[in-house]
């Protein structure tokens, strides 16, 4: 329809924002289809590389939308894509939070919080193992993850120190 990439970005991410249930990875195929196959903003290889970059860089990995917007229309594209992605779901979550706050005095609220907490613990372990399996490709990396876990659980060393040492090991080619 329209040729203006900014408009396309608003339509793409504005509509994806509300369907990104259960974590952003569900909408990745739709982003790929539009950015690579339909609009040719990125090559297949670039999409994969930028996805890895967004995963590892500081901040939410869903900021890959900023990079797609950047590839489509520069800084303005990045800003438009990011806002289009965050605003609709943000408004919805805000409304949900307001409703949740209304339950503060209710007996339901502590029951929901205490009941969901153990479920979350299981989900955290599921994410942790998924991330580990995706990140660690050989013995050295698994060893770093294992040692770092022990250090983080057993000591009060600032995790940033652990991260920095691991990053240095990566730079030196140990991992």
């Amino acid at each position, binding site marked *: 329809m329209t040729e203006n990439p900014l408009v396309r970005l608003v339509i793409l991410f504005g509509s994806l924002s509300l369907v990104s249930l259960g974590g952003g990875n569900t909408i990745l195929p739709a982003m790929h289809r539009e950015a690579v196959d339909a609009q040719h903003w990125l090559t297949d290889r670039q999409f994969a590389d930028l996805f890895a970059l967004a995963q590892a860089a500081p901040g939410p990995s869903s900021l890959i939308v900023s990079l797609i917007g950047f590839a489509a229309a520069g800084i303005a594209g990045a800003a438009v894509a990011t806002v289009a992605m965050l605003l609709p779901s943000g408004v919805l979550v805000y409304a949900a939070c307001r409703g949740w706050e209304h339950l503060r005095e209710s007996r339901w609220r502590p029951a929901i919080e205490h009941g969901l907490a153990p479920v979350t613990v299981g*989900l955290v372990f599921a994410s942790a193992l998924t991330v580990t399996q995706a990140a660690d490709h050989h013995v050295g990396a698994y060893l770093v993850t294992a040692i770092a*876990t022990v250090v983080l*659980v057993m000591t009060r060393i600032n995790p940033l120190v652990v991260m920095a040492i691991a990053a240095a090991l990566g730079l030196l080619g140990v991992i």
Partner: protein
Amino acid sequence: MTSVSSRTTLTSSTTEPGPPPSTGALAAAFLTIALASFGGGLSAWAQRVLVERRRWLDQDEFLSALTLCRLLPGPNQVNMAVYVGTKFRGVPGALAAVAGLVVVPTAILLVLGELYFRYRQLPALDATLRGAVAAAAAMTIAMGLKVGTPLLRDPGGMVLALAAFVAVHVMRWPLVPVVAVLGPLGILWAWPRGPRAGTSS
């Protein structure tokens, strides 16, 4: 900033926090979480900053909010920022927390993206990130162990956690139906023991 003891014990649901944090403090906290999370591990950093250091949420509230945030559309840490911001400061709080979480990381990402498009690859960054990612995975495992320890005294909670893990990680079932089944079971389990029970007692 209020002074906080360096002890990292579980929070008690009986300690009522002081005055609500300012919008500036909310933005600063989420900026800290974002910047610390190179390599990943955002949820683990959020737990560390929001529960252990600032004590804005107790452990159960944080954990349940984490799952509620995953069930709603949108990136779950952005949703967590909306949740915490709204809780303390309404719309301005939500905007401040989300801005803290995304503005600086977006700028960093665009600089890295520009370098990538110019030079086709980022070899040194790639190697460094490989190390950081391995440690970030450890952050998430360590957080799981930390928040899971109270379940050792809670057999029902232990079963729920195990069921959630097996359903999502082993069976690969989608999140929403898994929580739709296990959530009500958890609520049933937590209900008779009243508001003082749970992982923070």
